[in-house]
């Protein structure tokens, strides 16, 4: 009644937005330059060019997604550069690139006029630039996400969609090798890796697919079991000395490898971690089997596998294809019509082989400036949706 009276007395009027500063409008508008920083020092955007590290391969795939409209069956981009939402307008190898909005893009021109990309910015500098509002968009390593948030950076975290796993090279076989693999798998303290190395930005992994995708991860244990690991190891005679490899350019892999060595020692397992040359041909989800038979002896190496799709069947198929050259996994392909049960049993069979030891699931983390609007986390397998974002004010403050 009180409210009614109030409404009766008052004549509603439209109050024009006046001098007082008001929060921004929400309807998208066109214009402005999006400033992007990435860590990779890309030398070329040539589709035939080979990236020299995983970071480069990842960055190239993201930039290709801005330039090309279509992908081929193998996931690589096809067609003409510039058929995508943006066109390359300037390129300085390893340093910077400028993309201009494609006015004729099939789905309508992007909201921003252009994207300025600074290449080769280290992770720490990217976070500082976000903090100082010197950039609008940058990737942040998951292990630095918490720190960035604490420093006031606007952070966007995806569902965990990248698996870090220890993959045993397929050269060893026999019962002894199965025991070695089982002992290692049981001694790893995944929770500690998530809590301390990843700063809680991730999940312990027991299977090849994350829970949000398959719904079956609880069927794959992740708990550390040092006692059983010790018991298994004591049955192996003579005890081998294990060499665990990691990508020399990847600080996260190095920390995880060193942590596994510490865990292994607690279980009485002798091992050492060793840096390996960067796996140049790797692209998202790919691993390089070049260490097999190389001069550096390695028993197992850490690999990152990024999901190409949210759908469990598709991701598992791609993972199997990419692990096969390293681990020698022989498994029948997951059929098109595979049920969740088929996918589970396929995953179970790989886990039972012990050739792949899942460690952690990690998210993709992005830092954004306050003026970036309509940013939506890309789903697994999707590129950065930079054509959809718009800038609240076209001039950076």
């Amino acid at each position: 009644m009180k409210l009614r009276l109030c409404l009766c007395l008052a004549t509603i009027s439209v109050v024009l937005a006046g001098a007082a500063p008001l929060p921004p409008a929400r309807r998208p508008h066109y214009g402005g330059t999006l400033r992007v920083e990435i860590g990779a020092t890309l030398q070329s955007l040539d589709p035939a060019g080979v990236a020299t590290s995983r970071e480069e391969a990842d960055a190239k795939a993201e930039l290709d997604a801005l330039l090309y409209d279509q992908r081929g069956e193998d996931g690589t981009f096809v067609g003409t550069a510039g058929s995508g939402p943006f066109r390359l307008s300037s390129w300085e190898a390893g340093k910077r690139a400028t993309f201009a909005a494609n006015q004729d893009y099939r789905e309508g021109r992007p909201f921003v006029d252009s994207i300025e990309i600074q290449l080769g910015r280290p992770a720490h500098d990217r976070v500082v630039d976000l903090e100082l509002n010197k950039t609008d968009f940058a990737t942040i390593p998951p292990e630095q996400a918490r720190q960035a948030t604490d420093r006031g950076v606007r952070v966007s975290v995806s569902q965990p969609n990248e698996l870090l796993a220890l993959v045993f090279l397929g050269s060893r076989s026999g019962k002894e090798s199965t025991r070695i693999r089982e002992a290692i798998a049981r001694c790893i303290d995944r929770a500690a890796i998530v809590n301390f190395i990843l700063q809680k930005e991730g999940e312990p992994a027991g299977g090849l697919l994350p829970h949000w995708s398959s719904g079956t991860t609880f069927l794959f244990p992740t708990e550390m079991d040092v006692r059983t690991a010790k018991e298994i190891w004591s049955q192996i005679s003579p005890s081998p000395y294990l060499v665990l490899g990691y990508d020399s350019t990847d600080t996260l892999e190095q920390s995880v490898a060193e942590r596994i060595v510490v865990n292994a020692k607690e279980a009485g397992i002798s091992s050492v971690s060793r840096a390996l040359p960067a796996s140049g041909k790797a692209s998202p989800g790919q691993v390089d089997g070049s260490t097999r038979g190389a001069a550096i002896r390695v028993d197992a190496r850490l690999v990152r596998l990024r999901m190409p799709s949210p759908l469990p069947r598709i991701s598992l198929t791609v993972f199997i294809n990419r692990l096969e050259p390293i681990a020698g996994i022989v498994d029948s392909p997951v059929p098109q019509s595979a049920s969740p049960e088929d996918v589970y049993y396929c995953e179970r069979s790989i886990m039972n082989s012990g050739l792949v030891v899942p460690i952690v699931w990690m998210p993709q983390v992005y830092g954004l400036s306050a003026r970036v609007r309509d940013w939506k986390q890309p789903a697994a397998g999707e590129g950065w949706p930079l054509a959809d974002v718009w800038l609240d004010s076209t001039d950076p403050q």
Partner: protein
Amino acid sequence: MRLLPRLFLRRAFIFSLLLALAAASSEGQAAAQFPPDWTNALGLLADKIAAVTKRGEGLSVEVKNISSLSAADVDGLRQLLVTDLSRRNRRVLTESSADAALQVTFSESADGYVWIAQILGGDKENVVMVSVAAPNHRASTKEAPLTLHRKLIWEQDAKILDFGILGEGTAGGSSTLIVLDTDKLSFYRSEDKGWKLARAVDLPHGRAAQRDVRGRLDLQAGKAELPGAECTGDFQHPETVTCSSITTTADPETPRQPIAIQGRSVQDYAVLAGTCGDDSLTLASGTGDWTEPDFIQAYGGRNPSAASQPIQVPGPVLELRRNDGGKSARVVSRNLKTGVYEASIVSVSCDD
């Protein structure tokens, strides 16, 4: 004396019959509350459990829910599963007297629900599972002094630019729903509490695609406008409507002055006529991005203050326009869960 056993038998029979009826009724109620694909999936799960257990085997059943299913749904599903297992000659017992333990987990994947049964006992562990599509959830409204109601009229995959209903409420006559999207202007006739397509007029091709294209319907004038195209005709008679290219590519939306509501600038709003003996009300949506769920709220007063509780919309409100007569507003939104565009009418009711 001879009558006593007979009487006892008769009573026992009636009691058993009543028990059986009660059980059947409660089972029927449990089954009735679920969509058919859920009950079918549960039956399939029972088949799979039966295939890996022995006839007459006693099972203890433990249920875990790690999905978005409600506790009530899980209880009902458990009850149905137990019945399904009994029909397949599997006895459900307490843990201490069971031959094997059945652990059922209601989980969820990127595809939908996954219902998993682990049969623990003996040498090896058996795992069987079924998948079920997850239903879409609709937003609910809250009670308020002035209450807003959102009625979903239409939903489709293609982006809805505007919509309207002609002939609504007219005695005897059927209504026509007109939907303007990025590709066509469609006319639907009301039929059996639904809408049936009467005619769709394609918009001319070759228009430059726009990421934030807007369009507008003027039902009285029989006109639909969007950048690069225009449709005209008598909307009561869809067969008279034609669409053609026009040279202007300007946004047909009349630029509107933003208004200030509770310290924020609002560009999209609809001013409704006084519904409850009051002066007009302004409906406005939230301030979030188009990546977030949204709300619509009514504001009144010279310095507009909230006059209703917000009603939740499961995605961004893309268009909010006053309907002819000013008694309600038409809303176009995008449901973020399903990805479809929704056309709905928001009206105001008064609490006495």
